């Protein structure tokens, strides 16, 4: 927090001074609440913290260029455990498994568990391949979620939203959110101050990176309409196994590397299939991401680290 007084400190000071009013700054608008209200309210101020994004572990993938996606995921977990500052939690942005098999989910869960860090999930299309079209994912990871698995939570003043865009995909389309989820998102955001920093995480990119390969979400624009009023929005996804970033107003989009295999740059190749890099170059193309929240509406600091470093 540096030289800024902590919120608790200010409250204590105000209490001692007996003014009974607490001034807060939210989105540049000065407002006041009574001291009783302030003390009763949950902490809403943003406290600095860091969290991680891992993506596209594809546990069960055994082909060129990575004969053992379990091994590289294990390396990623070891890297996380060795971090000098432990993140508050991990977001896994989907494609946990290669074929939605129980053993693949079990192995991923076990390796994640060994970090001792809480994990939040969203599914990728590879996690929807059981007979029940995603029922296995939902049974395993969907506790407390709504609809096809969407949910939100708050952490240190930041609102996190998990969106599902790999369910009930339509012929010729891309990722898809659906009306029910968009309605829920609208309600979820409705009462929130525009100064609340938002982190949205999902699997398929929320902007059209490359339509010919389906690298986008059909109805993302409707979600963006709801997100745009917020002063700081960070959208995290996986799916395309490479780091691409883009900013649109207050919205920063970040796609993440996989821990299993890289994919070609948009349109650079006959298909979006695995990029067959030489064995010695594989780990430089895989990685995990650390995000640090400082305070207020400042953009999150995003650091991508490859498995080779």
């Amino acid at each position, binding site marked *: 927090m540096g030289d800024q007084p902590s919120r608790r400190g200010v409250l204590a000071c105000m209490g001692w001074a007996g003014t009974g009013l607490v001034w807060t700054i939210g989105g540049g608008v000065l407002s006041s609440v009574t001291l009783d209200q302030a003390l009763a309210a949950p902490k809403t101020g943003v406290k600095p913290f860091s969290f991680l994004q891992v993506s596209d572990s594809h546990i069960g993938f055994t082909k060129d260029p990575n004969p053992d996606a379990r091994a590289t995921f294990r390396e990623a977990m070891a890297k996380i455990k060795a971090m000098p500052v432990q993140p508050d939690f991990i977001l896994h942005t989907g494609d946990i498994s290669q074929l939605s098999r129980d053993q693949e989910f079990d192995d991923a869960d076990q390796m994640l568990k060994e970090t001792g860090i809480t994990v939040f999930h969203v599914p990728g299309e590879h996690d929807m391949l059981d007979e029940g*079209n995603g029922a296995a994912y939902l049974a395993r990871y969907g506790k407390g979620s709504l609809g096809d698995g969407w949910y939100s939570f708050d952490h240190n003043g930041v609102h996190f939203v998990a969106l599902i865009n790999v369910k009930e*995909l*339509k012929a*010729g389309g891309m990722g898809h959110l659906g009306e029910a989820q968009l309605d829920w998102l609208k309600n979820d955001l409705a009462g929130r101050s525009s100064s609340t920093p938002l982190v949205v995480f999902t699997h398929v990119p929320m902007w059209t990176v490359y339509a010919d390969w389906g690298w986008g979400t059909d109805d993302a624009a409707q979600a963006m309409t709801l997100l745009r009023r917020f002063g700081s929005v960070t959208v995290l996804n996986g799916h395309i196994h490479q780091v691409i970033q883009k900013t649109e107003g207050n919205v920063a989009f970040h796609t993440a590397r996989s821990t299993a295999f890289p994919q070609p740059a948009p349109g650079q190749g006959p298909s979006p*299939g695995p990029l067959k890099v030489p064995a010695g170059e594989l780990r430089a193309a895989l990685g995990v991401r650390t995000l640090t929240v400082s305070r207020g509406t400042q953009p999150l600091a995003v650091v991508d680290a490859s498995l080779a470093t």
Partner: protein
Amino acid sequence: MFQMIFRRAAVCALAASAAVALGAAAHAPAPVKTAAPALVKVTAPAPALVKIGNFTFGPQALTVAPGTTVTWVNDDDIPHTVAASDQSYRSKVLDTGDRFSMTFAKPGTYEYFCSIHPHMTGKVVVKAP
């Protein structure tokens, strides 16, 4: 319309084709009693193959005669599915080398896609030769 088939069902499809052929014979105007049913020769149209490679169905549009069994084989190193665009059926996930077959009995245009990678689309056009 069409039948999803696995190996045993293929026999049923042949039997169905035979029944259709017999039915047609029964309605024929000629009063002459010809061959006994056991001697009617029925041949199903030659099976057709769609290869899945580089995230495309090849051929993208396949034209076959009614009764043709179409087999899809996944030559990619990423799994795919074959799913009806109207959501009426979906294959199991096809990993590398896996196959899926369906017999198309009735004329019509059957559009399908990969439910994992929905930009992958194809169609089977069934019409009498």
